[in-house]
């Protein structure tokens, strides 16, 4: 059963110029993205800055209104809704099922509220009686491995890692159907990052969380996600189960990304660098396959014809004309 099914999602921004502010072009930040998240599954959305991964997550949360496409969401009451077209009013009662974990644990907690109140806020807003709220806050603090006394203290008393735990407790307060986590560990120190990664793994096991994990760090993603979708210039270029994607990538961009990550092992030093050039501009993406100017395998066809995301093996999708003929290197 799928908690979320996104199909052909687009978010375009018009570019205006001239005296009459006529539309002269469009930034195709997200340009036809489709994926699903099954119940209890963590899907990672990865890619470099400007690839559109955060725009996708913001469309799902309806912090942005999509240009077109559908976002079918199952709030767990037997009927799915399309978040893409729902009016704001109708979204309200759904928000409790759709929660977010933020990147920056310093700006995402109100410094004037006690931790207990921060965690209880979503409960209060949704009409949970005070007595129940108290018990639930204690339960949540325990869940994120924080002492009960944290309840009566303010966020400034806590380190970045502890604040991130508080943010996670708040996101989980209402037992959401789907958690969207946008770079939840990238602002943390290594030793603290490891604690939060382990916590997320625990919570996935214990609560069967469904999660969209937006991240740029491919190492972190390998630890926490069940499947990975790789984005490049507004489109998904590859989707696969995590281990398969890392071991045997099927899109040249995935191969490039994996090869670029410096492994914490001096024996693996000096791997061949394949990517040249910069990430393409989503305002004027190259014709054909957007990756072709940087792709070591590009042929004439890649320069004119845009490849579609197709199933190249059971459960594995790639948008590359040559996916079946080229042999790509992964990281074992």
């Amino acid at each position, binding site marked *: 059963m799928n908690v979320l099914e996104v199909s052909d999602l687009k978010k375009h921004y018009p570019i205006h110029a001239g005296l009459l502010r006529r539309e002269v072009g469009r930034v195709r930040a997200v340009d036809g993205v489709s994926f699903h998240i099954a119940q209890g599954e963590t899907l990672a959305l990865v890619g470099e800055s400007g690839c559109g991964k955060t725009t996708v997550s913001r469309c799902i949360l309806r912090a942005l209104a999509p240009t077109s496409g559908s976002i079918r969401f199952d709030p767990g009451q037997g009927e799915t809704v399309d978040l893409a077209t729902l009016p704001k009013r109708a979204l309200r009662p759904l928000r409790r099922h759709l929660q977010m974990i933020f990147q920056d644990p310093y700006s995402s907690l109100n410094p004037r509220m006690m931790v207990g109140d921060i965690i209880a806020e979503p409960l209060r807003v949704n009409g949970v009686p005070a007595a129940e709220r108290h018990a639930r806050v204690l339960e949540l603090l325990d869940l994120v491995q924080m002492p009960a006394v944290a309840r009566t203290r303010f966020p400034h008393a806590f380190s970045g890692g502890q604040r991130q735990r508080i943010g996670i407790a708040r996101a989980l307060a209402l037992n959401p159907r789907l958690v969207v986590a946008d770079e939840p560990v990238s602002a943390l120190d290594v030793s603290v990052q490891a604690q939060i990664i382990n916590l997320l793994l625990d919570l996935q096991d214990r609560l069967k969380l469904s999660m969209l994990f937006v991240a740029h760090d491919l190492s972190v993603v390998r630890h926490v996600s069940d499947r990975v979708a790789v984005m490049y210039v507004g489109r998904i270029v590859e989707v696969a189960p995590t281990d398969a994607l890392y071991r045997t990538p099927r899109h040249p961009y995935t191969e490039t990304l994996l090869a670029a990550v*410096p492994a*914490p092992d*001096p024996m693996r030093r*000096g791997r061949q660098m394949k990517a040249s050039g*910069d990430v393409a501009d989503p305002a004027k993406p190259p014709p054909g396959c957007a990756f072709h100017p940087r792709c070591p395998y590009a042929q004439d066809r890649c320069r004119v014809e845009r490849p579609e995301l197709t199933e190249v093996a059971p459960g594995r999708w790639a948008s590359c004309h040559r996916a079946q003929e080229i042999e790509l290197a992964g990281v074992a």
Partner: protein
Amino acid sequence: MVERTSLAVRDLAVHFEMEQGTVRALEGVSFDLHAGRTLGIVGESGCGKSVTARSILRIVDRPGRIVGGQALLDPGTAEEADLIAMDPESRRMRGIRGGRIGLIFQEPMTALSVHYTVGNQIIEAVRAHNDLSKAAARDRAIELLREVGIPRPELRIDAYPFQLSGGLRQRVGIAMALAGDPDIVIADEPTTALDVTTQAQVLDLLRRLQREKNIALMLITHDMGVIAEMCDEVAVMYLGRVVEYAPVADLFTTSRHPYTRALLRAVPSILATPRQRLATIGGAVPHPGARPSGCAFHPRCSDFMPGRCDAASPAPLRPGEAGASCFLEAQP
């Protein structure tokens, strides 16, 4: 392999006088930089890695104050000069800053002004350290931009920083650092703000420039992958001290300080198995103002020996000698 020692840092100590008391940001840091070699400085936030760089360049912001130690340029030669003894505003120090020692920042936008073209700024840096005419300095600036791999430098020289991508901006930042033809370069998290494919390109560039110019490179990073990829020797810092110093291969295979071992185990790996948990270090890095007694790592250390580690500090490392500042090591 004996190379010329370009810079010898000895017992460097920096205090920050705060209202709450004295924060000892650096407590006796010593290391050497050698021509043609890369020293990695790694540690979590608050360990003092950036303060070390700023102290050498004499740009520690108030209320920070260097309270002791030396930074000897060309140690053991007739030209030996102690940067710490110099007036930071003196003509000589200004000549060294950017002349002998180049600095590469994490976010090149902090080093570049938004109001001037890239060319203006590099030309200014070139002329600050070389007696050149405007036209000759412009030619030199174009040559520098070409050296750092900027395509069509004769056009890009008239671009403003905001017109360049993050990767190109960091290349400009590197060109700026090289404008005075330094033989020592300090790079403070030079790729942290960059995407992974761009990071690979910039690391490659740094390696190439170092080789060509026989630069002594001090590379500050929190990323063990970057350390493994780039460094010859590594100094691991924790709360203002070097706790371990080792050749890079030894650091990853036979690290000697419990903190280094714990840190390496906590790093997420691109080679992880699905849902692999990480070993964690309990707690968080304490605030430097609340430094624990004895060995500052003892409250988080798995090998903590009561009555010993919390009672006295282990002896600091002798510069250039591999080892750990830990009671588990044979103490001199």
